């Protein structure tokens, strides 16, 4: 078998989080009754005229700038013509030769190195409607609520050389986009969609091989698996002496294979021409510069700052920055209580697990910054031990109450007066005479077991450090007497 190189380019469609559609004032809210968010413009009724939503242009510019693109000074829209019932006008308003942004790049950490992936362009366009196929009535049902919802399509250069690189590109891109606040980037809701262009060529050959376009990729994992499958399929095709046909192939998640879409369905002849219903847009340099100034702090910048300002390790800073909400929560906490290391530990080793278990983001919980930092301080000053502290946190996440209230309600005040502790220690020492004996004969480590027994008897409410000291003292006394 010959040596093949994989070449991948990705097209990412991002649904913007504007209030209204790209060319009309209909709401973009998800999940409403079919066709309840439509008007003559997005239904494509005769005589209606589109007008561009200013926020879409601004978001498009923000995305372009964050991807190190040049912003075109002349921006115009074009009609992409195709006949399919999800498009009421029989054309999609998109951008052809003067998109909002062109020629950028995204730095992606992949395979232990940083690779610069080219961005060919980012352009604005309107989303299509939703079709539900109903075989029993031999019909398709169309909901135009999504028609006209603003999209920005980000087209990468064919710079990725493996499914893993494509996966890493997507993860990095999604993180960057999440910091821009232009979309909820939710793949499950379809706010972020991805198509992959895949081809192979013999090692050393410059010319690109014939590509196939993979669609129906509903998760990053699906993107990776589909590319892996498709590369193998193309290799087998070539090795069998056959040719690759340029076509669209759909990923079948169940069977984990790509399947050819009937080529009849997809004559890629869109006959683009300038959209006469929309005027052109001139972007002054000052306007683009203003947008550049207004860019929020991007993930890589935040990472560096966290390491420098808060003396976090690369790993800790990375974990925080990977989740925009968590990163912002962390900084707010540090503002409330200046102890970045302790806060980081609590967020990464405790809070994050609790959030994962609940499948929630920090923003979706009732946790307040003050309550959280107060709780950590209570553990620090010994009012709570780690175990009870963690328990209080779980109740906080569920109820939104503060630690003082929860300690009271759940009876979690730490038992630390000597008298109460000694009573418990008496019991434990009596019950574990053999262990006591072992400790006396030098097995100091076994003290941990006795501490554990005491903690158990107090339902975790005792101060383990104090118990340890008391037990040590007692055994020493006993042994010296």
């Amino acid at each position: 078998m010959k040596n093949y190189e994989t070449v991948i380019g990705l097209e990412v469609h991002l649904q913007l989080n504007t209030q209204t559609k790209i060319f009309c004032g209909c709401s973009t809210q998800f999940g409403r009754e079919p066709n309840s968010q439509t008007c003559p413009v997005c239904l494509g009724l005769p005589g209606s005229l589109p007008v561009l939503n200013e926020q879409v242009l601004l978001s498009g510019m923000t995305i372009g700038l964050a991807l190190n693109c040049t912003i075109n000074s002349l921006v115009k829209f074009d009609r992409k013509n195709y006949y399919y019932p999800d498009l009421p006008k029989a054309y999609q308003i998109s951008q052809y030769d003067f998109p909002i942004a062109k020629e950028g790049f995204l730095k992606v950490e992949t395979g232990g190195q940083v690779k610069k992936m080219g961005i060919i362009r980012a352009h604005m366009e309107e989303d299509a409607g939703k079709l539900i196929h109903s075989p029993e009535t031999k019909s398709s049902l169309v909901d135009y609520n999504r028609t006209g919802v603003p999209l920005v399509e980000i087209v990468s250069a064919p710079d990725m050389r493996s499914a893993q690189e494509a996966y890493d590109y997507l993860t990095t891109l999604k993180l960057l986009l999440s910091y821009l606040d232009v979309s909820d980037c939710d793949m499950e809701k379809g706010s972020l969609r991805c198509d992959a262009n895949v081809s192979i060529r013999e090692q050393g050959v410059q010319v690109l091989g014939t590509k196939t376009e993979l669609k129906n990729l509903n998760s990053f994992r699906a993107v990776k698996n589909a590319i892996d499958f498709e590369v193998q399929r193309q290799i087998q095709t070539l090795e069998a002496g056959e040719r690759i046909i340029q076509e669209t192939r759909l990923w079948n998640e169940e069977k984990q294979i790509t399947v050819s879409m009937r080529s009849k369905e997809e004559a890629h002849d869109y006959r683009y021409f300038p959209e006469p219903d929309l005027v052109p847009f001139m972007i002054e340099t000052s306007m683009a510069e203003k947008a550049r100034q207004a860019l929020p702090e991007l993930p890589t910048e935040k990472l560096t700052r966290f390491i420098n300002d808060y003396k976090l390790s690369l790993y800790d800073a990375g974990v925080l920055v990977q989740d925009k909400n968590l990163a912002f929560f962390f900084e707010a906490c540090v503002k409330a209580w200046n102890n970045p290391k302790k806060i980081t530990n609590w967020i990464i080793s405790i809070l994050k697990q609790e959030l994962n278990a609940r499948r929630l983001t920090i923003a979706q919980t009732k946790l307040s910054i003050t309550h959280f930092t107060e709780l950590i301080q209570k553990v620090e000053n010994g009012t709570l031990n780690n175990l009870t502290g963690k328990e209080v946190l779980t109740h906080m996440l569920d109820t939104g109450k503060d630690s003082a209230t929860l300690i009271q309600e759940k009876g979690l005040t730490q038992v630390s007066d000597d008298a109460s502790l000694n009573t418990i220690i008496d019991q434990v020492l009596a019950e574990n005479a053999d262990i006591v004996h072992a400790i006396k004969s030098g097995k100091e480590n076994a003290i941990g077991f006795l501490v554990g027994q005491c903690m158990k008897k107090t339902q975790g409410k005792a101060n383990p450090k104090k118990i340890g000291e008391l037990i040590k003292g007692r055994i020493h006394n006993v042994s010296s007497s």
Partner: protein
Amino acid sequence: MITKKDVQYIAHLSRIHLTDEETEKLTTTLEDILGYIEKLNTLDVSTVKPTSHVLPLQNVFRRDLPRPSLSQADAIKSAPESHKGSFKVPQVIE
């Protein structure tokens, strides 16, 4: 040169069924139109600025503020067929 095949291809893209007679007729019509455009092509436009839009307007925006939509009933009122608030069209196979 427009051929019958071109017309059939465009008809397919447009999901229009044409009879042989219509195909024949449209082939000549389209050829005539192209001929006219060819005539325009002979004009000297070296001093004319290329334009994608005829109005002396640019940067016309809408603010991102919601406006009332049509009611579901009104939206589908003109549809030849509908089903539970959705437009009903002949089945399209993917």
